[in-house]
């Protein structure tokens, strides 16, 4: 098993895949969106509760995806908890930078999300890691149409 693979499928990532956090539907979400990746069949829903300042008070996801997608969704829900939608957007920006360049952009604190740096070595998997975030963005914008990574 080579080093790149070990970095991609780190224990933390596999753990989030096996036991995804904030998984399952919210009863009365303020916003929600569906995203899917037609290439591999990943399909997830992200649901949000917001306070009057557009601060995320709760976020859940449901659906089915590969390990990278599920772990990314799970860790995303932890990272954006209590953040404003704008802050979440910035976090996505930094995360995306990390996935495509492998560099931690520094402007935002990615925290545990840095564990996804290994995705860079697997360009076709970038979409798996970003799908939850694209879906979160769509939910924030209250888009009805399912969004797709294609």
């Amino acid at each position, binding site marked *: *098993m*080579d080093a*790149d*693979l070990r970095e*991609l*499928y780190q224990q933390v990532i*596999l753990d989030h895949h096996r036991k995804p956090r904030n998984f399952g539907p919210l009863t009365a979400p303020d916003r929600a969106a569906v995203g899917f990746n*037609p*290439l*591999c*069949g*990943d*399909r997830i829903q992200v649901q949000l509760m917001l306070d009057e300042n557009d601060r995320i008070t709760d976020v859940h996801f449901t659906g*089915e*995806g*590969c*390990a*990278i*997608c599920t772990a990314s969704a799970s860790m995303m829900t932890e990272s954006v908890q209590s953040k404003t939608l704008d802050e979440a957007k910035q976090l996505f920006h930094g995360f995306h930078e990390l996935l495509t360049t492998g560099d931690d952009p520094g402007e935002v604190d990615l925290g545990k999300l840095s564990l996804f740096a290994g995705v860079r070595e*697997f360009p*076709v*998997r970038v979409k*798996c890691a970003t799908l939850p975030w694209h879906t979160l963005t769509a939910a924030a914008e209250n888009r009805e149409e399912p969004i797709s990574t294609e």
Partner: protein
Amino acid sequence: MNATPSSPPGIAPLDVERIRRDFPLLKRQVNGHRLVYLDSAATTQRPSVVIDAVRDFYEQHNANVHRGVHQLSQEATAIFEATREKARAFVNAPEVAEMIYVRGTTEAINLVAQSWARPRLKPGDEILVTTMEHHSNIVPWQLVAEQTGAVVRPIAIDDDGTLDLDDLDARLSERTRVVAVGHVSNSLGTVNPIAHIAKRARSVGAITVVDGAQAAPHYPIDVQALGCDFYAFSGHKVFGPTGVGFLWGRREWLDAMPPWMGGGDMINSVSFQGSTWAPLPSKFEAGTPNVGGAAGLGAAFDYVSGLGLDRIAQHDHELLQYGTARLLEVDGLRLIGTSPKKTGILSFVLAGIHPHDIGTIVDRDGVAIRTGHHCAQPVMERFGVPATVRASLTIHNDRADIDRLVESLEGVRRMFG
């Protein structure tokens, strides 16, 4: 000689070692491992004879076809038409003029949908499409249904991936105009009983359109014995170049159909008062065709016939049996598509591990397989999986290739432990 012990008498086994040397790409290392290519159902690799034929065409004979009096144009035309004749022989069509050059199976089926079906279908007419079809044998029918008011209805498949012939019978009626069916399913490996289906279709006055994309590299094809009306296949699935394939259709239909595209070479005369069409096959071949691709495809037909389609089918069958047995040893592995009549396609899922993760990991071991819906989303839905892993077998694969896959899958299992 890499003889497979169980070869029946009379059919000499393929010499896989030797065949492998015919394919330059198989010499490649991927991630430090000898490449094991198990993705021939997506596209085959090309033997040197095919690659050389393309190069030789461009270096020695390259010209536009048909309309030139000069030497090169005559040579290019001769090569182009020779491949058409080889294609005719490959599917045993009655007439070479019935073989229409297309980009591939997808274009062929769209041609039939637009030129045969669109002018004929009326609201309420029905197009039966099996649930195991590739998108290219579903979406063209949905498009023409929307254009005409016809309806597309699925024919069910059994739990092992066999077509439900009772459901076919139940759905056939005078409203049925088209039955669209794959000769071999690319996601399940199932071989469909085309002759039977075509007969049933004909009994209600419907035509049978066969997607032969996955049959072409595995089986001797005889469109006259099959009794279908159209047969489509892609060159790149039979060891030929990309961008070239054939549609066979019965002359009576082709003659009666309007052109598919307008342009050069498909006309008899053009004027602003009106234009008239050329006879078959030109009527359906507007514009400069893929002549270089045709040169390569001719070599591919020769290569395949040189090996013998009965031997290829035999090899495929034996390897499928071995592969099925080996895969079932893998913990948590579920085969999707276990019909008694199958070609060498092994579609499966592993409990708790997404196909996409499997694809990434086995690729690191130099094993090229395909993961996803294989352009057959209704099949995924039917079997309740988001995607599958698919290993597809061909002439240059052997038991060692399957062992490498199984080994790699064991690694996946350990990693996800």
